[in-house]
């Protein structure tokens, strides 16, 4: 009986958050296979840590953090076994992206998914989630300078993709 109640309660949380969190997982991993895996892992972590929610800030924000951390852990683990990043040679530093107003959400998600993993992480963490470079450096184990340069390079690739879509 207790287990049934717990299941109902967790299902309510699931119904409330699953859409956004699954979208988040897709944004970070860039493909449905990894997104499915990490989504399930993160759900289990969410359930396991429910008693740790202190009521500070929104529940969604707290859950979002769990999903983000799960994505980062998943990708870090994968990076050891998967390919290494090859940074593109981009001399142009784009400080502000132009042409974004013409894009819809689906287009934005598409151009994010087209980024290499490292750049995709920075774009998600900095531009979408709003973390600072300092916070990102702690989360990814890189320096602030690296976070900034990665973002700068990511922007130049994003700009190319935005321009391509807008043509």
């Amino acid at each position: 009986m207790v287990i049934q109640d717990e299941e109902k309660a967790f299902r309510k949380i699931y119904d409330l958050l699953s859409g956004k969190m699954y979208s988040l997982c897709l944004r970070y991993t860039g493909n449905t296979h990894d997104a499915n895996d990490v989504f399930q892992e993160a759900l289990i972590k969410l359930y396991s840590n429910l008693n740790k929610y202190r009521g500070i800030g929104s529940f969604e924000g707290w859950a979002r953090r769990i999903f983000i951390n799960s994505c980062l852990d998943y990708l870090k683990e994968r990076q050891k076994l998967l390919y290494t990043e090859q940074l593109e040679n981009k001399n142009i530093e784009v400080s502000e992206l132009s042409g974004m107003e013409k894009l819809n959400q689906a287009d934005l998600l598409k151009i994010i998914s087209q980024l290499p993993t490292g750049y995709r992480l920075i774009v998600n963490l900095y531009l979408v989630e709003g973390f600072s470079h300092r916070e990102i450096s702690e989360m990814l184990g890189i320096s602030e300078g690296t976070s900034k340069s990665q973002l700068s390079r990511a922007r130049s690739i994003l700009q190319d993709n935005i321009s391509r879509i807008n043509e």
Partner: protein
Amino acid sequence: MSLKFFLITTLFAVPPLLGKTFAQAPGQLTLVYDITIKKNKSGGGIEETYNGGTRTVFISNKRARIRLVSLMRIQSVFFDFNEIQERQIVLVKESGTKKYLYQISTKQWKEINSKYVGSSSKLLNDSLNLGGYKCRKAIISLASGRKITAYYTSSFTAGQQATLIEPLFNCIPGTVLQYEVASGTGSVIFKISEVNLQHIAPDVFVLPQKNIEIRKFTTKEAAADL
């Protein structure tokens, strides 16, 4: 009046349509096809050793690779368009006790794929959503009379080199995301499970060399070149 109207409409309608047909090729493209084989005869047969496998196409600027992974074998074809020399295609058997590779020239590759010369396609209105892309149906008819049912998207193309990599699809105005060969005995379907435009690691295009026997392949035309 009606003829004028038709002409004016066509003049304005055609360019946008043309623009949509010749979609841009992404710099990096990974297509993962799931292999499904159905045989009409019940009971697990040899088809189960390929059933469930994947056929992955990697295209990255000047390089490409088609990799087949199955219980029966793992095999790849590497394409290197950077190479100035003639032999720029390599077929590698990556599994088994006797692994081997063949270095093939473009001419030989075309000869191997001569069954696709003279093929034509009929584009139909039927559509299907595959891998997140809306795809239209096409029936490819080979010169031999065999038919292949394909679903393709015009959202992106596989690039200029696609004609060499996938000669079967030369008559299709887009990228094929599903194709099927059916006969009285059963069917073989390659269906897209993932389209990925992410950067492809350079390692993907590195040829395996250790414990691989280099075999020679000569065809009648190729022999004349030597």
